[in-house]
């Protein structure tokens, strides 16, 4: 039975929540920040054979500094394979080899649809965002998609302004109707307050666990849809000492993860 410590920050807890979704031998497509951190925690704890790739063309990189983009110079030397988008997004992702994808977005809705295109009307945008990049294909084709989001009414929505990346789209049966591969789709939404999972029938995100210090009521109020609560709702397991050791001694000695606190992950 692993022992816990209370001295951790939210981004560390969220990274651990991500890590716990990863199984040994998983092939994980990552971006930067959280996802890489989560996958690396898993690799150093319960999933030593998990491997990572970046959409830019990299498989099993061995960076000696934190990658600041998915095309970062540090991803080249030492990697097992360095090809291009066609290799990773086509030959690996589209061909069905990717088990886990991490995504985040400015807006995430109850069906796990993600918006990274525009806030407001597409043709008269209040704010124009970067666009899909690799998010849409990862959301469409990765077996299990893990979504990272801030838990507030700006970041979460009943319905996103623009579906850049498919979650369960309009709900049950939508992905199948469009011919998206079976057994794919969002698995979990990890926020700074809670872990939400998707109901097998309704495909709606429900509250699975609340982070230490948060309450069910608070989370329900902060969620812009009628958030169902799991019968077995419970407190999120805090980072174990081993998880924190890996984060702080192995992966992030300079505590760069703390920047996520400034971005609201508190």
């Amino acid at each position, binding site marked *: 039975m692993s022992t816990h410590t209370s001295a951790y920050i939210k981004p560390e807890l969220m990274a651990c929540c991500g890590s716990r979704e990863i199984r040994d031998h998983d092939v994980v497509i990552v971006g930067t920040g959280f996802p890489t951190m989560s996958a690396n925690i898993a690799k150093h704890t319960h999933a030593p054979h998990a491997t990572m790739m970046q959409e*830019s063309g990299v498989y099993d990189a061995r960076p000696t500094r934190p990658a600041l983009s998915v095309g970062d110079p540090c991803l080249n030397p030492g990697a097992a394979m*360095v090809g291009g*988008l066609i290799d990773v*997004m086509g030959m690996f992702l589209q061909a069905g080899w990717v088990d886990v994808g991490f995504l985040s977005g400015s807006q995430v809705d109850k069906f796990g649809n993600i918006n990274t295109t525009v806030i407001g009307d597409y043709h008269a945008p209040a704010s124009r965002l*970067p666009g*899909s990049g690799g998010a849409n294909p990862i959301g469409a084709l990765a077996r299990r998609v893990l979504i990272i989001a801030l838990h507030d009414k700006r970041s979460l929505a009943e319905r996103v302004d623009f579906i850049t990346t*498919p979650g369960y789209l309009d709900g049950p049966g939508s992905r199948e109707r469009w011919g998206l591969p079976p057994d794919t789709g969002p698995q979990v939404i990890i926020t700074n307050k809670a872990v939400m999972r998707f109901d097998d029938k309704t495909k709606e995100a429900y509250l699975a666990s609340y982070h230490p210090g948060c309450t069910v009521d608070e989370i329900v109020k902060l969620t812009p849809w009628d958030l169902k609560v799991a019968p077995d709702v419970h407190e999120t397991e805090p980072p174990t000492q081993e998880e924190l050791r890996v984060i702080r001694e192995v992966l992030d000695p300079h505590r760069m993860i703390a920047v996520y606190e400034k971005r609201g992950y508190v």
Partner: protein
Amino acid sequence: MSKVMSMQAAIRDHVPDGAFVFMGGYVCRPPFSAVHEIVRQQKKDLTITRSNAADDFDILIGAGCVKRFISTFISLGLYGLARCYRRSIEKGIPHTIEVEEYTNLSLPMMLMAGAMGMPFVPVKDMVGTDLMRVSSFMGEDKFKMIDSPFDGRPVMLVPALKPDVAVIHVQQADEDGNAQMWGIAGDCKWGANAAAKVIVSCERIVSRETIGKDPSRTIVPAFKVAGVVEEPFGAHPGYTPGFYDTDFGFGYVYQQASNTVEGFQAFLDEWVYGLADRTAYTQHYIQKFGFSQYKKLQAAFDWSYPVSYAY
């Protein structure tokens, strides 16, 4: 037959106003020297494309060179949203560009289809999302849904892209244009080969014999190449594996400058209009930030093991 020329001549002769231009470089190897020369020559009405665009595309948009953008994503990476792009879309400054949106799967597939002489290619992403609902200058031809004639399942087809010219930056090429690259490829090989002709910007021109020592590194054959430009440091502030690192500090300089129209204009005056070519650019960089900073960007040595093709 040597095709070696200056970047000025390459852009002047091969990137006419209104051209459809593929610009290689996914974080890795952006052809920045060519981007600056396009701005310097004030090219107009370009259609530009690449998967994951960044500051290089933002500069072209801010400088008013762009009419249309076949996009998957554009940001300043670490430094957030692309300022000029947002100003163009949100405020029409300097003008509103037309954007056709795809993804980092579908666009590379469309470039591969162009390179392979395929009229279109099936893709498994995009379906069911609002990317199907919006289209711009490609209109009805942005994609087509069909029922597979093999199993009746719905399939999205996207059209092949055939740029008029591709501009790429690679590690090395010979005088004739045989271009060799290593490290993160993005969609560079396919975008280059999809184009009617290619401008090859490279860190160093090598002999045909050097190319022949390792021909499986070649991504573009000479017969597709219209111009070869030896442009060391040509991807700065981006990086080139084996040559120099990303200049994150300069990325911050660009973010700050591009926060305002005036700041962006001043940036162009200092780093583009005010400088004749990449040599002047590099000298200005060294004078402004110091040779020690320039040296700090230069890559360490970590040689691969040689291989042999002999029999």
